[in-house]
């Protein structure tokens, strides 16, 4: 596939179904070049492997024998600060999404998806994109607008423009094209905005920006 540009990406799969875990492991090793894959069937094991592997991306099932994946996102991001956490959820319920984003999750993928869609989400998260479908992103941000909270720091007009483009589901590549800037520069700016907003993912940046009134929710735009 198209992963020569991200050599030796480190992936942690947290899933309690042994067959699904084994299948994902095998598929990731085969299809994502040079992927180093760790697996865990419980949150306890996930904490251990996250600390050892320092993954670039974590695929995290929500329903696990020792707790809810969404509740563990913040802890995993602390253990592996470079990790983008993508939640695997059966329902995509607003409560689960909210908890996970507030913990710093980078995105979501539905459990009914196949391997191809799941790997697309993982790649998006590694790129620094919000790994979430445009429609679900719109719902999430519309909900966030009803729960206003102040932002830690002011955001420049340029960065606001960038956040608005991302909030409409354009992604870094789409925003770069719109702004006529190199993708790498836009990716760097997205990271800088996340730092400004004290967010651990692009998705969390967007939620914080909407709650703080920095950008309007997509429906009002």
């Amino acid at each position, binding site marked *: 596939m198209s992963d020569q540009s991200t050599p030796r990406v480190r992936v942690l799969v947290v899933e309690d179904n*042994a*067959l699904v875990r084994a299948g994902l492991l095998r*598929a990731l090793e085969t299809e994502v070049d040079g992927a180093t894959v760790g697996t865990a069937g419980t949150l306890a094991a996930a904490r251990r492997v996250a600390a050892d592997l320092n993954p670039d991306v974590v695929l995290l099932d929500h329903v696990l024998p020792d707790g809810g994946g969404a509740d563990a996102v913040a802890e995993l991001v602390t253990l592996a600060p470079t990790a983008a956490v993508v939640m695997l959820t059966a329902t995509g319920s607003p409560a689960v999404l909210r908890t996970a984003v507030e913990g710093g999750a980078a995105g979501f993928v539905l459990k009914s998806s196949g391997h191809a869609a799941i790997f697309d989400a993982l790649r998006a998260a590694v790129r620094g994109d919000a790994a979430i479908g445009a429609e679900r992103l719109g719902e999430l941000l519309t909900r966030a607008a009803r729960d206003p909270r102040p932002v830690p720091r002011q955001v420049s007009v340029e960065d606001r423009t960038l956040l608005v483009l991302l909030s409409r589901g354009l992604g870094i590549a789409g925003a770069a094209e719109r702004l006529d800037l190199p993708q790498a520069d836009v990716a760097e700016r997205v990271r800088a905005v996340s730092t400004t907003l004290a967010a651990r993912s692009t998705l969390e940046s967007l939620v914080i920006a909407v709650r703080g009134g920095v950008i309007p929710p997509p429906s009002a735009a």
Partner: protein
Amino acid sequence: MEDETDDGATGRTIRVLVVDDHELVADSLVRVLSLEDDLVPVGIAPTLARARQLVALERPDVVLLDQELPDGHGVDAIGDLLAAHPQVQVVMLTASTSENVLATAMAAGAAGFVSKTSGLGELVNAVRAASRGDAVISPELLGRLLTRMRREPARLGRDLTDRESEILGLLARGLTNAAIADRLVVSVHTVRNHVSNLSAKLGAHSKLEALAIAMREDLIPPPPA
């Protein structure tokens, strides 16, 4: 255990069709199966309709069949799949199985059952065992099935109600429907309904056949003292 079940050394390959609409599970099963040299996944069918097509086209040795599918229950398609390709072995993929589903699947000709939450070895062994024509069932499921069979011996007439048994006894003594109605203080219509129901339960097409079956199966209660 591994050596006993490993058919890889013989060079024979086992072609496997996965029937499951849950893409993550289906994709994962295919990956897991393809790790084994002797197992060849031949496709994924997300519906029963597609499963029927692929069984006819691909002639797999083993079908892993989910129970809940968008166009019906897996157990109800076992007969069709066997008709399309009589050599196929159908293994039901069941997370938690009611005994009714177990019994229906076995009666329809399933080779066995394996849980979606089983380990890798268990799944692979199940596919290999089924391909050899062995029954595939975990000790836990087998225990439940045997308990059910002990509890409910599959004897003809065991599902007759007390009233139906009573009427059967009166019929055996030569009473007409009208006489029975008089005796039981019910309408002739009600007696006729009871006779019709008990005949159906005995698989009889007539009152006479019902009596013959009831005599053979020793279902006639003794006359009241």
